[in-house]
């Protein structure tokens, strides 16, 4: 168990939520999730993630969630790749002349910043891991007092998934915004070629800082 210090009710609650989410993924095509704009990810990837999550949930609910985050990011990136191939091979349909989709000129900067942030966060974890206590704080209440604990390995896994999940998504989306802007256009209903990389970078900054703060707190460097 990665969550040995959490109350039983919380773990059970997580288990039930995971069960519902994984079953929803398994029947995503029957529910026609894409129609309701809930996801643009290919159903076949959603199902694979759903199966893995469903099974892992019985081993450890947190492990199932970590798997879900990694799985969803990977499947989203694979879906973007498919869109790219399709758009390149099909080209413009006959008579379908339209406007040119401009590249996002700050996309490259965001891409570089995102990669640097990920590298810094990972380095911090590698350097700090040997000094982490066995019982680590992972959550604070509104009064800023710790109210959730995990073991060292669980903490490291959670940290890794957070950093890699947001980091790879930001890196890929910002890369697409200047290299293959049409891919982003095809997958989003709003014209978010500029918006999406910026929002993701902000999310990554907040996420990485939160993770590094937790790391510092557990090392006794922050109060």
């Amino acid at each position: 168990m990665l969550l040995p210090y959490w109350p039983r009710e919380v773990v059970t609650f997580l288990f039930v939520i995971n069960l519902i989410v994984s079953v929803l993924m398994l029947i995503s095509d029957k529910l026609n999730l894409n129609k309701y704009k809930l996801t643009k990810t290919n159903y076949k990837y959603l199902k694979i993630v759903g199966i893995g999550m469903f099974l892992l949930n019985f081993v450890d609910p947190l492990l199932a969630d970590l798997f879900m985050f990694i799985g969803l990011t990977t499947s989203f990136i694979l879906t973007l790749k498919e869109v790219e191939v399709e758009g390149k091979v099909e080209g413009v349909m006959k008579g379908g002349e339209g406007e040119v989709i401009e590249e996002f000129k700050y996309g490259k900067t965001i891409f570089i910043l995102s990669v640097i942030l990920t590298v810094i966060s990972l380095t911090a974890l590698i350097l700090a891991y040997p000094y982490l206590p066995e019982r680590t704080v992972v959550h604070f209440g509104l009064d800023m007092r710790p109210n959730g604990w995990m073991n060292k390995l669980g903490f490291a896994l959670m940290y890794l998934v957070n950093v890699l999940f947001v980091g790879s998504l930001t890196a890929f989306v910002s890369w697409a915004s200047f290299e293959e802007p049409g891919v982003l256009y095809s997958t989003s209903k709003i014209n978010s070629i500029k918006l999406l990389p910026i929002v993701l970078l902000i999310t990554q900054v907040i996420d990485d800082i939160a993770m590094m703060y937790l790391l510092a707190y557990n090392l006794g460097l922050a109060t």
Partner: protein
Amino acid sequence: MDPRKEFWKGTYYLLILKLIKEGGSSYGYELKKALEHLNPSESTIYDTLKKLEKGGYIKGEWIRVGKRARKRYELTEKGEELLRELEEEARLLCSFLTGQGKLSHSSS
């Protein structure tokens, strides 16, 4: 391994460059149609286009077509040059096959 398939694989560069030049610009879809009888996989066309683009032989632009984006290609100067060279190679092969020449580049 299918020797026929292997033979055509190398010619896609020439064929795609030629088709883009013939159309002037914008083709992807027509390109796929034109090559249909050779039955290339999507990834073959994709890889060829990608390599040509990376090498600077063609220039791609994403175009809005309704809710989707499609890529439109144009030959660059470098691409025109490559096309001429590849056509020369193809001519060499043809003349060899028809018994009118040897398989070597003329040193003129």
